[in-house]
């Protein structure tokens, strides 16, 4: 288990989360995670293990029941303002064209919101460059409902990156896409991350996606969620689609799968995870 250290960018320390007042549901139990700056981590686990709750905690949208969370050396007690988020549902605003959807963060984030009109040209140029980098050049003036699901998800990624966030939170962003589009977007995401190097937390139930993209994979147990294993993935970058056929890749995926299956059947047996590499 990775011990929380002062050098890490995101530090989750003994965090528990309990929902409800009468029928208490424990969503997360004594969670510890440490993520260094610029790292790409993935959080995997069975459905209902509290992965999405984790997202809300780290972004400060919901306070933990106990424990502490620090991001960039600051204790989190209110919604963070340096985060980009993308979800399984692209959540683009249907009355805005793609370009102005991508520019939305600049109308809200401090300090850009005060100079939005003045800097509009600059923002437009950056938004267009982002759209270009995800292969959406020429779609800036389309409305979201004129785009396919995969294209909407690309635009949603651009919106998450628009204000140059220091933390990118992705909650199953490719969960609703078909296999071809999904694997195409793995590479799009990896290229963006290689170019920007912002700390990224990807929540997913797709083990192959986690191993393909992340430097470090956190495996969570069934509810109440806690980290049962931390696995460092050391394949060199950029990783290319052939990698998924590599026996070493398959072995890691298999290992993670076994682990999740095992602790689902015998939840009590899940003790503190072991670090593997």
């Amino acid at each position: 288990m990775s011990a929380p250290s002062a050098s890490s960018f995101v530090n989750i320390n003994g965090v528990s989360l309990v929902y409800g007042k009468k029928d208490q549901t424990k969503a997360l139990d004594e969670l510890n995670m440490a993520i260094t700056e610029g790292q790409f981590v993935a959080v995997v686990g069975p459905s209902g293990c509290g992965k999405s709750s984790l997202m809300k905690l780290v972004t400060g949208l919901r306070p933990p029941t106990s424990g502490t969370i620090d991001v960039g050396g600051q204790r989190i007690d209110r919604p963070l303002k340096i985060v980009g988020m993308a979800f399984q549902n692209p959540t683009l605003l249907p009355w805005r064209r793609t370009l102005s959807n991508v520019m939305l963060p600049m109308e809200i984030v401090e300090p850009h919101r005060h100079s939005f009109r003045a800097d509009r040209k600059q923002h437009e140029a950056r938004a267009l460059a982002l759209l270009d980098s995800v292969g959406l050049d020429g779609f800036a003036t389309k409305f979201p409902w004129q785009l396919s699901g995969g294209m909407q998800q690309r635009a949603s990624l651009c919106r998450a990156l628009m204000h140059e966030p220091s933390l990118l939170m992705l909650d199953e962003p490719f969960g609703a896409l078909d296999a071809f589009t999904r694997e195409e977007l793995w590479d799009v995401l990896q290229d963006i991350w290689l170019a920007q190097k912002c700390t990224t937390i990807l929540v997913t139930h797709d083990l192959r996606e986690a191993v393909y993209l992340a430097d470090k994979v956190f495996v969570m147990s069934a509810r109440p969620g806690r980290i049962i294993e931390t696995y460092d993935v050391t394949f060199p970058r950029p990783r290319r689609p052939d990698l998924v056929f590599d026996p070493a890749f398959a072995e890691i995926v298999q290992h993670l799968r076994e682990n999740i299956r095992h602790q689902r059947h015998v939840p009590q047996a899940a003790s503190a995870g072991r670090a593997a590499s």
Partner: protein
Amino acid sequence: MNSEFLGRAMPWLVTAGTLALWEGLCRLFRVPEFILPAPLRILAATIEYWDAIWFHASHTLVMTLIGFALAVVFGLLLGIAVGSSRLAYQGLYPLLIGFNSVPKVAIVPVLVIWFGVGAIPAILIAFLMSFFPIAVNVATGLATVEPELEDVLRSLGAKPRDLILKVGLPRSMPFFFASLKIAITLAFVGAVISESIASSRGIGTLMVQASADFRVALVFAGLMVTAVMGIVMYAFFAVIEQHTTQWANRKMEMEV
């Protein structure tokens, strides 16, 4: 192509058919004019009394529009309050439902006591009848914003005002415009009701006077004019709805 043409012609065909049937039945059974005048007789009465009808109808139209304008402003504000605050919703909703359940005819005498016979009761009844659908629709649009979208914005540091201005209000616009075409007809009904109880001018007054004088053809002329004005105002707001919230009516082709 053919069925599209038929679709456009249908409203006219059905209306013409109904009127023709009415005319035919009246003639066939020799229905006396003081019970049910035939359409052609009504048309004749409309032309004959056009000056009087227009004098009253234009007044009703003005009352309706003033009441409706008040309803748009007030309905929007109330809808925003109820839709964006859970507390306001819980506190105001039962009151609103209760208020909307009271027949507005019953309020007219009270308004007459307060404001006297004339324009103000008509405007107020038009307003009271039409603000409810506007408020409810705007509130619905605001209250059904996707939670993920809210998370995205809040994680950018959005203030509650940002959420309403950037997401809530644009999202509730299709609901708002859909409610306008319902509200305008209700406002019209409200104005006519009030005029027929307490006013010296307006299409409602005209019909009450005409029926007291047993001029049934004129009563029906008033009814017809009322119906036509209702349809015209509905159509006007239906067109506005189509042009303002394109994104909500995705009938156009995918252009990709």
